[in-house]
């Protein structure tokens, strides 16, 4: 399960070669180019688009976590927005109560997320499919109400202003500085995620996804690994929530409603469930396309006249795109990419003989 599928023409003779993350010089070259392009990006893009890239990084971290749970382990979770909020609120609460520093807050948010994951994951030991989805959705509402309660009791409902954090004496203010902080964080999360998937954890999670009964017959402690999947997922989610709170500089319960959940679902569904590449593509798609639409809508007077409804239309468009992907290409953008890849790799043939 590597990020890049190796060229089928490459002969691998050692185990190390087979498990290499970047298997061929071709892939290494383009990975290096991608990193260089990313490093140069803030100097090419203006502040607005750098901000979009920053938001994509944070969304990517959250989307990877959701994909780990839904795509890899096959445990549907509709409580994701609540967990993002829990992370942001943990950081906000620690700042308000103890004036705790940045690193401590990120760590605390991650720990709170992990604990919440165990609590919400416990029903997953008994519930499947629909019932699990509903119990996580119920958890979402309960978490949101609890956060609203805390917010109105501490800050009289106004929300929390977050100070600009400093990382190793480097104050994170302005989009460009955030970019150079978020890029390594996102890449590191990606690496950790890919390594999880390549290790015993990932294999156990995928086995549970395919059939939990046969997974347990293979000697996998399904209860333990389901809880682990929930806990790992919500920990990373809460971490991204804390980052999000610091990045926007303001935490309020309204930001973590069902629209945020839909946004994350859109990322993993449009990108492709169970695919790391899908999370990356989906996050970029969902964070960028609304702004492109907004730019396009500025030229159309009829849309401009609708004013606030344009926002509603954008959300509706995501609904439509999600629906089309579910109906027509369940593997998402990643699936489209694999199709293009297969087309060129196999040309002039249509499919590998041993795939049918």
């Amino acid at each position, binding site marked *: 399960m590597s990020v890049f599928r190796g060229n089928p023409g490459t002969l691998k003779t050692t185990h190390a070669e087979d498990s290499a993350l970047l298997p061929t010089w071709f892939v290494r070259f383009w990975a290096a180019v991608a990193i260089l392009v990313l490093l140069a990006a803030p100097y090419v893009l203006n502040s607005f688009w750098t901000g979009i890239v920053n938001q994509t990084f944070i969304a990517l971290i959250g989307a990877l976590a959701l994909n780990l749970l*839904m795509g890899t382990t*096959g445990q*549907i979770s*509709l409580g994701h927005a609540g967990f993002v909020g829990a992370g942001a609120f943990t950081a906000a609460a620690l700042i308000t109560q103890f004036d705790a520093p940045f690193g401590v807050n990120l760590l605390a948010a991650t720990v709170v997320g992990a604990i919440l994951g165990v609590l919400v994951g416990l*029903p997953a*030991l*008994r*519930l*499947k*499919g*629909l*019932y699990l*989805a*509903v*119990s996580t*959705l*119920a*958890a979402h*509402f*309960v978490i949101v*109400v*609890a956060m*609203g*309660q805390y917010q*109105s009791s501490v800050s009289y409902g106004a929300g929390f202003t977050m100070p600009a954090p400093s990382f190793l004496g480097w104050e994170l203010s302005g989009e460009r500085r955030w970019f150079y902080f978020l890029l390594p964080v996102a890449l590191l999360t990606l690496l950790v995620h890919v390594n999880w998937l390549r290790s015993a954890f990932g294999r156990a999670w995928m086995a549970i996804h395919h059939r*939990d*009964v046969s997974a*347990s017959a293979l000697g996998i402690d*399904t*209860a333990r690994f389901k809880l682990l999947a929930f806990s790992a997922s919500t920990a990373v989610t809460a971490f991204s929530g804390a980052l999000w709170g610091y990045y926007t500089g303001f935490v309020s319960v309204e930001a973590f409603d069902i629209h945020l959940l*839909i946004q994350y*679902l*859109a990322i993993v*569904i449009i990108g492709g469930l169970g695919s790391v590449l899908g999370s990356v593509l989906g996050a970029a798609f969902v964070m960028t396309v609304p702004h492109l639409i907004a730019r396009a809508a500025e030229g159309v007077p009829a849309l401009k006249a*609708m004013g*606030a*409804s344009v926002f*509603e*239309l*954008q*959300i*509706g*468009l*995501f*609904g*439509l795109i*999600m*629906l089309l992907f*579910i*109906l027509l290409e*369940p593997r998402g953008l990643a699936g489209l990419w694999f199709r293009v890849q297969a087309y060129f790799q196999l040309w002039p043939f249509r499919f590998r003989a041993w795939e049918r």
Partner: protein
Amino acid sequence: MSLVVVILIQASFYALLATGYVLIYRSTRVLNLAHGELMVFGAFVFYQALTMFPGSPATAVVAGLLGGALLGALVYFVVMRPLAGYPVAVGVLATIALSILLRSLITAIWSGQTRYPAELLGARAAPWDLPGGIALTPIDAAIVAAAAAALLGLPLMLQRASTGVAMRGVAENAVLAAQRGINIHAINAISWGAAGLMATLAGIFFAVKVRLGPDIWIVGLAGFAPALIGGMDSLRGVALGALIVATAEVLASRYIAPQFALAAPFLVLLVALWIRPWGLYGSREELERV
């Protein structure tokens, strides 16, 4: 005493919503998270008809019910039929996507403005004073009556009417039902249409009693809590589920804090899922301990 009446009205409203969830789940094994939008759509069709024919509320109600039922059937044919046989999670995700699509269409057609259809229906009728100091408005009485009619009539229809028998057959085993010559797609579309109709009924009541706007979908969404507590495939469980949820909600908002009204149904649901995941009267399917 008036508390009991408030709970009864709320429970009746939840029962109307929950029957829609149950009808859809029985036929297609889908938890329809777009139910709130079906409700809003039907209520808006009702409102539209009401502005066009101000003199006759009955026409408006019929138009609304028809609109909701047609949308339900349309959703089945366009979205749910191609997804037959997929894991349940896919169906849930599809209805989530559908819900935001419908919501934005509703906003695009009727704008996000809040309306009060009660004003169009003329001055609100004075409440009847019942013995015991209870005041019952006609709309509340209508909600209770409609819920009672639905809870008695729907099981009767499933028992006696040939369509109802076919619906039970499809719910029991769709493949076998198809083998025996039942047009399962027509039956499923009828189930979805009936669910859209029930949702619209609830939507019209809510619109007349409280308000109408695209944001009331959340009220419709809350209806899945009583459906699950009662058992997703059991019409019998709906009454009890609705009663439990309504009691929890009314008591929480009265004795703890009004903000808890939204969380109470879901807290009860979490407890219920933990103790008895398949609901009070539901059948135990797909639920084994691992």
